[in-house]
């Protein structure tokens, strides 16, 4: 009886497509459907990708390589302090001439000193070489770096010199050819092979006329070469250059040479000003020196020609000392006066120190290697002294009036003037009269800002920094040879704890964060009780009459009013009409009513309070509506009054919902910018707000102002500030979600 009919062929009788036509029609409709579906997904993806682009852009601007040019090298400042200490220690003889030092120690049984190891080799009968941390300096320990005080020796010259002075050019070729075989005779050690190859390469690039490929090398005979070669600089390098110049002459150089031992710094200065063809240096050239060279049209080229192991030597007669540790060296050259203070086994006799002078690269090296001081770790006194020597007294006075350096002492200001200035009535006297003195960290920050003045001259975004690292390094080196390329996180602990600053490198968001918190505090204080109260009225008490319907409609409409209109309301009402109140004048918060200004935290907080009030009311109403009616009836049936029922039963069960709604409304307030601009957020304040009557700025305001600046670095700190703001919002919203979850698990 399975008499199922086949599908009747109705194509003649029905106007609908049948059979193949129907299949095709349906297929076409499905294809259409698929196309539209893809369109819908695409729309959603565009919306989502714009969020991704936004976040990506923020991250891209918040981190990345920067090229920083320090006006003053911070390490230099730190060394200055240490060197000053070393040089000022009693019983210290200093000289730029290492021969003098060697002689001094040779004639003093309590003498100790340090210089390039070549000077020891020359005087090894009268001097005794000490092991440092158990290691004796020799070719092996120097090459392996085991000996702590090994350092490269440099010769600096410039393209211009090599092109214009063939005598100098060929000398360098000769030197690079022969220095490795000659250097041990002088007493130093060869440079690493990599450094040696790099030096040869550099010479080749300076002589493109030879047509040599990299990796090739040529040695040119100086036969009959005339001309003059002037070398000036480090006393450490001096024996090596002197030896090589003499060899050069023997090899056939027919011209003259001059070689002066004046210290690395003096040598580089002379070279940069064009007074010499080569600068010999026992330390790398510094950014400031490069700058000086470039200003004279000389672009310094670096050639490492050898390695020194700084020799610590005592008199040959000194039998007690055979080795010292780095810590003992620190004491010997500064704090200790007699040997036995350093080590009880040593004689109770006064230490006599023979050290290179302030111009010497050797002293720099010794100070850096032995004392390992960084500027940030120096004591406050040293930092203040550095500041005092590097800024004008006028600027110092201004800084001191802003905030003192010491509780009881003045650095820049004359005590009489200070007392006079601080006798002025509050409000007119400078903040330094009452503020806490600056801490070591604050002085350090000041030193950074006033003296070192790191200037970010070039910013690379994160994507570039990660993908094109080498290209960035090359470009930065070419454009800013004296710049330091570092990876900078614009969002840092300092950024969060520092106050506002006019230089983006030092600007922070502390003032803005405090401002935001204060404003939000006032906002919540104002809008939460009133909003919840209004919601209770509308949900629990209000009869369905005309007034209450108007009330509800009005609240709904208020929620749609642009925020900037609230700003105008706040400006007109809180800032102007209620100025005496919002400036705190009637509470005596400002001294003279003339200086009263309503553009304060309380005005801003109240404005935002009005702004989010409708949101809080609507959210709270929803939460109250979700409370089952049975709860109210149960309360009332027990004889509770309506308020008791609300207070003890309805509110507690609606509270999580109310709080969630309030948090969402508050996060809206935190991000609001326009109304606060209108109400009058300060454009630039560095002082933390102290109460509701303070002037203020907030995070969004900062972001707005920084975004509006043309300089690139402001964009970076705007991005960093956005991250801070988003993190704040995220944590708020997370707490809302936690509340919501707790609420929903409890109610089930």
């Amino acid at each position, binding site marked *: *009886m399975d*008499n*199922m009919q*086949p599908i009747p062929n*109705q194509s003649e009788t029905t106007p*609908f497509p049948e059979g193949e036509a*129907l*299949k095709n029609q349906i297929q076409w409709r499905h294809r259409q459907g698929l196309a539209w579906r893809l369109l819908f997904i695409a729309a959603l993806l565009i919306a989502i990708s714009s969020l991704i682009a936004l976040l990506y852009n923020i991250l891209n601007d918040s981190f990345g390589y920067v090229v920083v040019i320090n006006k003053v090298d911070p390490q230099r400042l730190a060394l200055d302090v240490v060197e000053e200490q070393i040089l000022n220690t009693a019983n210290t003889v200093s000289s730029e001439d290492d021969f003098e030092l060697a002689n001094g120690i040779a004639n003093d049984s309590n003498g100790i000193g340090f210089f390039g190891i070549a000077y020891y080799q020359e005087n090894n009968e009268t001097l005794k070489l000490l092991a440092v941390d158990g290691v004796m300096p020799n070719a092996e320990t120097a090459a392996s770096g085991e000996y702590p005080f090994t350092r490269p020796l440099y010769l600096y010259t410039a393209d211009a010199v090599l092109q214009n002075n063939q005598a100098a050019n060929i000398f360098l070729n000769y030197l690079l050819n022969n220095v490795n075989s000659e250097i041990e005779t002088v007493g130093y050690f060869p440079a690493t092979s990599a450094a040696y190859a790099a030096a040869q390469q550099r010479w080749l690039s300076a002589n493109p006329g030879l047509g040599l490929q990299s990796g090739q090398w040529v040695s040119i005979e100086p036969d009959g070469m005339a001309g003059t070669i002037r070398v000036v600089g480090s006393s450490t390098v001096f024996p090596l250059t002197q030896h090589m110049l003499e060899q050069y002459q023997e090899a056939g150089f027919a011209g003259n040479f001059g070689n002066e031992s004046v210290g690395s710094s003096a040598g580089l200065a002379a070279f940069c000003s064009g007074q010499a063809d080569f600068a010999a240096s026992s330390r790398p050239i510094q950014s400031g020196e490069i700058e000086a060279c470039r200003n004279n049209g000389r672009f310094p080229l670096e050639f490492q020609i050898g390695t020194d192991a700084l020799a610590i030597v005592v008199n040959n007669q000194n039998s007690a000392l055979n080795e010292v540790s780095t810590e003992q060296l620190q004491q010997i050259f500064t704090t200790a006066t007699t040997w036995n203070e350093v080590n009880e086994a040593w004689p109770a006799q006064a230490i006599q120190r023979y050290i290179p002078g302030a111009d010497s690269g050797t002293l720099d090296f010794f100070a850096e290697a032995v004392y390992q001081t960084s500027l940030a770790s120096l004591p406050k006194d040293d930092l203040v002294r550095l500041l005092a020597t590097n800024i004008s007294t006028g600027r110092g006075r201004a800084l001191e009036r802003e905030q003192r350096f010491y509780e009881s002492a003045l650095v820049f200001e004359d005590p009489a003037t200070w007392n006079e200035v601080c006798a002025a009535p509050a409000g007119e006297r400078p903040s330094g009269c009452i503020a806490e003195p600056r801490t070591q960290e604050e002085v350090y920050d000041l030193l950074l800002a006033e003296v070192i003045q790191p200037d970010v001259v070039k910013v690379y975004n994160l994507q570039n920094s990660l993908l094109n690292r080498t290209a960035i390094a090359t470009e930065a080196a070419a454009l800013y040879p004296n710049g330091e390329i570092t990876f900078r996180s614009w969002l840092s602990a300092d950024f969060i704890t520092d106050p506002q600053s006019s230089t983006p490198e030092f600007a922070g968001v502390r003032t803005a964060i405090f401002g935001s918190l204060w404003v939000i505090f006032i906002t919540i204080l104002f809008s939460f009780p009133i909003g919840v109260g209004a919601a209770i009225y509308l949900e629990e008490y209000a009869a369905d009459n005309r007034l209450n319907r108007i009330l509800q409609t009005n609240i709904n409409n208020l929620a749609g009013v642009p925020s900037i209109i609230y700003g105008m309301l706040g400006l007109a009402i809180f800032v102007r009409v209620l100025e005496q109140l919002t400036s705190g004048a009637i509470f005596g918060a400002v001294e003279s009513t003339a200086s009263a200004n309503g553009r304060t935290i309380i005005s801003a907080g109240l404005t935002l309070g009005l702004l989010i009030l409708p949101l809080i009311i609507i959210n709270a109403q929803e939460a109250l509506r979700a409370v089952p009616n049975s709860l109210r009836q149960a309360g009332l049936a027990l004889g509770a009054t309506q308020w008791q029922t609300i207070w003890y039963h309805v509110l507690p069960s609606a509270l999580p919902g109310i709080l969630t709604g309030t948090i969402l409304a508050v996060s809206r307030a935190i991000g609001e910018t326009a109304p606060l601009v209108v109400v009058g957020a300060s454009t630039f304040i560095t002082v933390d707000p102290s109460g509701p009557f303070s002037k203020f700025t907030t995070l969004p305001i900062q972001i707005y102002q920084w975004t509006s600046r043309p300089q690139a670095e402001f964009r970076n700190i705007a991005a960093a500030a956005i991250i801070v703001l988003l993190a704040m919002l995220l944590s708020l919203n997370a707490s809302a979600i936690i509340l919501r979850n707790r609420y929903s698990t409890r109610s089930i």
Partner: protein
Amino acid sequence: MKPNTSFSNGSVAVEAKEMQVYYGSFRAVKDIALKIPTKHITALIGPSGCGKSTVLRSFNRMNDLVASARVEGQILYHGSNIYDTHVDPVEIRRRIGMVFQKPNPFSKTIYENVAWGARINGFKGNMDQLVEESLRQAALWDEVKDKLSQSGYSLSGGQQQRLCIARTIAVKPEIILMDEPTSALDPVATLRIEELIQELKKQYTIIIVTHNMQQAARASDYTAFFNMDGDRAGYLVEFDNTNELFTNPKNELTEQYITGRFG
């Protein structure tokens, strides 16, 4: 006891074989074997929750719209299983139309309500004529011919349901599924729909789910009685000629149900 699933004369419009319907892991309907006779009215009755609506909705793959629903077994329509992967539910629904529990006209004009289904299905004839014909068949034409451009919502409940029937027959289906079509209507409107259904069976095979035993007895030719077992899975208890089923039930449960002792 195996229920009688056959009928003596006529052809089969659609047949369920070993059909099971699951919602997630819950088996809502089990082991349904049922043949629906062509151009007759078949009523599906049973206590609430017994899966009669589920069975009805399986006949035109409306259950596809429920994400968790899954149909096993076969529903044969013109010899092929409508749940085969190559079968398009769109075509099935065009051939097996449906009228729902509550009148659900589109928020369009009366005219558009009727014309829309035909239009999307590629109707190429005279639309005005089709609309009029459909409305006449649904016994609504005289009441609405002057207000075809008014919203479908402007009609009364009974009229709306007839509009939904008109809209269904406008696409010329072969089978019309009716899911308690009168449950939301007053007795007068119900009567009119019942009369209409009697008219429609001349051209269409009709399967109607009803809550109302009198309606099934009054208006159907065949009746299938469903019940649910201990796992709350619905199954077919008995299928027979309506007269036979109501006057001489083979199954004790059927008897209990039609005499109102449970359900």
